[in-house]
């Protein structure tokens, strides 16, 4: 733990230097598209044109590579194993939730998050078994974007990130810190670190194959559907499940 957090900043910086060059090029290409106009602008989404291009890129990538790989993985592995992998990464995420719940001055949530990490890392065999949930200690997932939101920082315009999908200016700005805050990214060995990231992403995608298919069927325009869902969900989290009404629904 200690070593992990000490090397966190340097490895985080390196992690980002490696990636930023490639992203920079992609971003320039995509930003050139941002000036194009869209037919029916939404006030929460001034960068819609750019966002739609990135969304299209992500969608192609998902159809061509990510989803097929995740499907093969799902069919080749038993459920308990995928569950265990998810638990392992959730446990790492819970460590970062401890920090964020503390930053939000939420005593109970911080305490429960600490308890989860302690119980799951030991009794739960390095996090592979979620013993804490069986003991009814609930998860309180929190990242820096949420912490900023709860301290009153507005979400800013909607953004679609390459590879990572829906976000907002606030969440995207906090995202590098969130990545650096994950102990999995503090591992010095590049191979191990990348391997873990790939396993985590494939495992997550495999868990959402069903949900993804529901969205395919339910959405008339997948872009708007996911945007509106993401913005509502995030707002709901910031207000702790009880957001004030945005506007009155239209009466029939």
């Amino acid at each position, binding site marked *: 733990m200690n070593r992990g957090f000490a090397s966190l900043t340097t490895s985080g910086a390196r992690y980002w230097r490696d990636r930023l060059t490639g992203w920079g090029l992609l971003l320039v290409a995509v930003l050139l598209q941002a000036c194009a106009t869209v037919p*029916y602008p939404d006030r929460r989404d001034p960068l819609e044109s750019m966002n739609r291009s990135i969304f299209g890129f992500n969608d192609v990538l998902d159809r061509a590579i990510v989803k097929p790989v995740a499907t093969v993985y799902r069919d080749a592995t038993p459920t308990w194993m995928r569950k265990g992998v998810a638990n392992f990464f959730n446990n790492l995420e819970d460590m970062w939730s401890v920090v964020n719940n503390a930053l939000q001055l939420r005593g109970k949530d911080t305490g429960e998050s600490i308890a989860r990490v302690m119980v799951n890392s030991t009794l739960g065999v390095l996090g592979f078994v979620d013993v804490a*949930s069986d003991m009814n200690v609930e998860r309180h997932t929190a990242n820096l974007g949420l912490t900023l939101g709860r301290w009153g920082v507005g979400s800013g315009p909607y953004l679609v990130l390459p590879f990572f999908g829906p976000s907002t200016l606030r969440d995207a700005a906090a995202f590098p810190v969130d990545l650096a805050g994950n102990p999995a990214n503090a591992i010095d060995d590049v191979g191990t670190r990348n391997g873990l990231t790939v396993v985590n992403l494939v495992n997550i995608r495999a868990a959402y194959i069903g949900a993804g298919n529901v969205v395919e*069927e339910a959405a008339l325009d997948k872009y708007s559907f996911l945007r509106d869902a993401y913005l509502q*969900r995030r707002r*709901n989290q910031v207000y702790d499940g009880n957001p004030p009404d945005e506007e009155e629904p*239209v*009466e*029939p």
Partner: protein
Amino acid sequence: MKRDFLLRFFWVSALLIGLSCATQAYAEDETADGLIKRLSVDVLETIKADKTIRGGDMTKVIALVDTRIMPNVNFQRMTASAVGPAWRQATPEQQKRLQEEFKALLVRTYAGALSQVSDQVISIKPMRASPEDKEVLVRSEVKGSGDPIQLDYRLEKTPGQGAGWKIYNLNVLGVWLVETYRSQFAQEVNAKGIDGLIGLLAERNKANSKKG
């Protein structure tokens, strides 16, 4: 004299029957959270008891949604609210078609989500509402393996009609159904008009049902 008595007897009994019917109707009205609880338990138990539903028998799930859930939903209000201002400009025929197609889309989606139910339990959260409220929010949580899923409903009072309450919006994990369709619908109506939206919905439903 005798006739007068008969007439009076007739009126009094008519009044009594009418009254008892009325009170009975009101007695049947549940509380909003009571209704949600009954519906959730009913639907979950049916799914758990029926292997063919969990096996993915879509027609069965759709039938379940249609018979148990839809009678407690004000679907006209849901559609109108999702369509927005354009709803008022739609002809009654267009409104009817919009409702039918939107309903087909949602029932299928909802059924798809329901068929993934396994060991879930629903808990209804305590409701903060006064008896005069015409519209209420009922919050619930689905607990199974993994993180609990927030599931909330907005209901309106419909005295003497159905169970006394009708659902007009629901949210999963903080995402309201009607709001999620609003900009998609507006986009299509702005581009191709109401008929364009009806056409798009119909097309999507056809494609979905082909998938089986």
